[in-house]
């Protein structure tokens, strides 16, 4: 009898037998062991106690943690599983022997493991370790939530940590943004450009600059009142952009519903906004009136909509047109074009506070939640991929605190400029 040709669909694949698990939500407090290289003396106690649990022997070669020492650099480094948010080893494993539990711990199921070692190649940390004599794969399972290595580390270089995301800042920021929007756009129409309450006056700093350029006159009281926002920015950073700007709030709403296609490269320079600022001031000087204010989307949105809206006609189309930039990147206007942001960015360079990302508990390449949620795109993904703590440029940070709020490990924090300590370390 002639044998029928086999078709690919006749074969069962591993995906039919053990499909990849669906993406789970990260547990609220994901566990992780935090390694502090400054404290580690390289005594390998962690290896000893780990192997005692793994194989009931003191056999460092059979442990799930490995300490590497460099005599030249004087550094020690512990290779440990980070229990990634989306572990590459799970996808790489041909037999689906690696699973991530509901508790956030990634485990190897010995029943299915064929000791092929692909997981060690897939893991950026090379955390699954191959036992040299037997070829068995060993990987940290956090001793089911009570790690022995942490208990016995004499220098406390290893610490067991359950992530503690803040997750309440969003419930504060959204109402604040909404109320400010309501206040400036609907109730006090046009007040952003020059808010006055009795003798208190708070004009827009960019508008003030244009006014000075246009009239060639410096009104000291006007300049002083414009400095209020500048001074607050020096203290708190660009909090106005993140919390109070009505157009920023509008962009945040639009950004949530629009797909992102990216911007052309020529638009992606954060220096453009300084050019726009210079153009606005120069244009005002030449034209004799506040040139940019006529097309300012912040001013437009404040003046246009509401019971006493004063902007009519073509001006109405300005801010929706700019809002379409949101299909490029989130807050594209704020990142690259806003001259008000440019003035505040100059002030924020000398700010007293900073955002620090990359505490020892930061999982860097295996998480990158902070980079994902940052609306200004200022958290360096490449640094995170390389396992380096990224520097956050405070001139570009709008202090929305999304990174602090979202980080599941509590590795993003606010610090004063002069504080050098990495968050999470004992100071």
């Amino acid at each position, binding site marked *: 009898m002639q044998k029928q040709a086999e078709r690919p669909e006749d074969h069962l694949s591993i995906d039919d037998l053990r499909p990849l698990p669906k993406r789970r939500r990260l547990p609220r407090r994901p566990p992780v062991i935090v390694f502090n290289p*400054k404290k580690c*003396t*390289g*005594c*390998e*106690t962690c290896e*000893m*106690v780990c*192997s*005692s649990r793994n*194989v*009931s*022997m*003191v*056999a*460092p*070669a*059979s442990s799930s943690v490995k300490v590497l*020492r460099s*005599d*030249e*650099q*004087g*550094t*020690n480094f512990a290779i440990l599983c980070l229990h990634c948010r989306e572990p590459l080893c799970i996808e790489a494993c041909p037999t689906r022997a690696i699973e991530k539990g509901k508790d956030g711990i990634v485990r190897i199921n010995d029943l299915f493991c064929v000791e092929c070692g692909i997981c060690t190649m897939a893991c950026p940390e090379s955390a699954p370790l191959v*036992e*040299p*004599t037997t070829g068995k794969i060993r990987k940290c399972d956090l001793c089911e939530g009570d790690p*022995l290595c942490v*208990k*016995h580390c*004499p*220098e406390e270089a290893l610490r067991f940590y359950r992530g503690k995301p803040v997750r309440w800042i969003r419930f504060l920021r959204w109402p604040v943004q909404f109320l400010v929007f309501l206040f400036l756009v609907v109730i006090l129409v046009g007040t952003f450009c020059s808010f006055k309450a009795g003798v208190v006056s708070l004009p827009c700093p960019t508008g003030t600059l244009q006014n000075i350029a246009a009239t060639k006159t410096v009104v000291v009281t006007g300049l002083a009142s414009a400095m209020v926002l500048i001074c607050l920015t020096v203290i708190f950073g660009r909090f106005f952009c993140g919390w109070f700007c009505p157009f920023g709030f509008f962009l945040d709403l639009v950004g949530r519903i629009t797909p992102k296609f990216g911007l052309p490269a020529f638009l992606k320079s954060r220096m453009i906004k300084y050019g726009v600022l210079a153009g606005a001031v120069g244009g005002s000087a030449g034209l004799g009136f506040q040139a940019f204010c006529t097309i300012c989307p912040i001013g437009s949105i404040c003046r246009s909509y509401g019971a006493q809206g004063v902007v009519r006609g073509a001006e109405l189309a300005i801010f929706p047109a700019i809002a379409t930039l949101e299909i490029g990147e989130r807050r594209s206007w704020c990142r690259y074009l806003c001259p008000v942001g440019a003035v505040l960015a100059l002030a924020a360079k000398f700010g007293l506070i900073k955002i620090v990302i990359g505490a020892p508990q930061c999982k860097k390449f295996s998480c990158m939640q902070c980079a994902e949620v940052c609306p200004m795109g200022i958290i360096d993904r490449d640094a995170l991929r390389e396992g380096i703590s990224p520097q956050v440029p405070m001139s570009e940070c709008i202090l929305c605190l999304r990174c602090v709020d979202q980080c599941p490990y509590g590795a993003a924090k606010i610090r004063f400029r002069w504080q050098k300590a990495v968050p999470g370390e004992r100071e």
Partner: protein
Amino acid sequence: MEPMSRFFNMKTAVVDLSDGSLEVLPLSRDLIEEKMGGAAVNQLLHSRYAEAFPLVLGTGPLTGSLAPASCLLVATFQSPDDKKLCHTPLLFRAGPELKFSGFDFVVIKGACSRPGVLCIGDGTIQIRSAEGLRDLTVPKAEATLRRRDPAAHHFVVMTGPAADQGSPYSTVCMGLGGSLDKTGMARWMASRNLKALVLNGNGGLPFGEDHLVLRKRMIDRLAFKKKQQGARYVLKRMSPDGNGKILPSRFFAKHLACYGCPFPCTSHIAPGNSRRLGAEDHGFVLHDHVGFDRLSRRFGRDALPVMNACVRLGLDPAAVAAFYPKNAKMDDPTQDLTSFLKGKEMDPQPGNGVLPGGISKEHYRLFGGGLPPISVSGGENEGAGWEKRVAAAMVIGICPVFLLLFPNLKIEEMLRFYSPGDANAAFSPVALENTIESPLSKRQ
């Protein structure tokens, strides 16, 4: 479980470098009960093969166990200086790597016809070629060696260019930490064409649940402060009058510990911390406290670059110090010391210096001549206390520096790791008292 098999592989290897033959002998239980292990068994094995002038590598019962500072490897050989037996302690990871390689003791005899590397691991011993390693500085030679077998998780004890050029002041090196060998182990290796020992321990020791508790309790009790750490602290303990104070603490920023040791007594010296440490050199590990102490008496702060050069060349820093006057200067230590390698006579004997508290020179050299002479009891019987403590450490397989730094830690307490619940076990304090007599007896 038999206590013996819990602490030993019960195997002794006898390797002949001349023909590469390997003989694996069972380790007698009676021998272990009588001599315990470490230096005492080494001495016995050395006497058995005395006609071949062997090098005996040995571990103690607690080496590689969960006992604190269980890192000791004892190398016993006849010193080329005075033809007397000596036991050199090799620390870092040397002891556990040998024990986990499947052998408790290794007797090395004969000589290689060409420069060779002795690889001990996974129950076998092989002699590999040391081609291309001659005259390379220690880090370069080690990097070359590791490149040839990158998969191996191994520990290397090697000789440097000093031994290659036949210097009488050579010393073996473990990475960039040098060693406490000041009685000629490097010369013994060089005379046998043996460039390096590669220890690759993939095995293990059975573990007792009680050991973890015991270890934790013991370490918690030590409770030393952060500032009492690192090489600087050991230097201060060696000579409280001041040599440790010559160098600012910022030079000793990163402290390192040997296998299983809760106390980091070595420090990494980084180039950024010393203006004179060459920019091309990244740094070194200050492990040879005695050598550095001697150098700092001669060179002051410039001792750091000289020490760095010594470590890279495999040269005994104490010997270098013995040949230079006080407040000496070296413009280019590596260059100056390379010319120093040849042509000096072996007088005065380096490595001894002035020993405090009545430690006899004979016994000091018996244990490698590089252990820090730290005051143990402070009484009249200071010397005997030091000798006894070191001898006990060398027998049970615990780092002698650790035991010297913590005089309150009784040897009997360490022995509880062997028999936590059994007071009448073979490894009792009385048995140890009898055993340490043999290494402490008159040098052969």
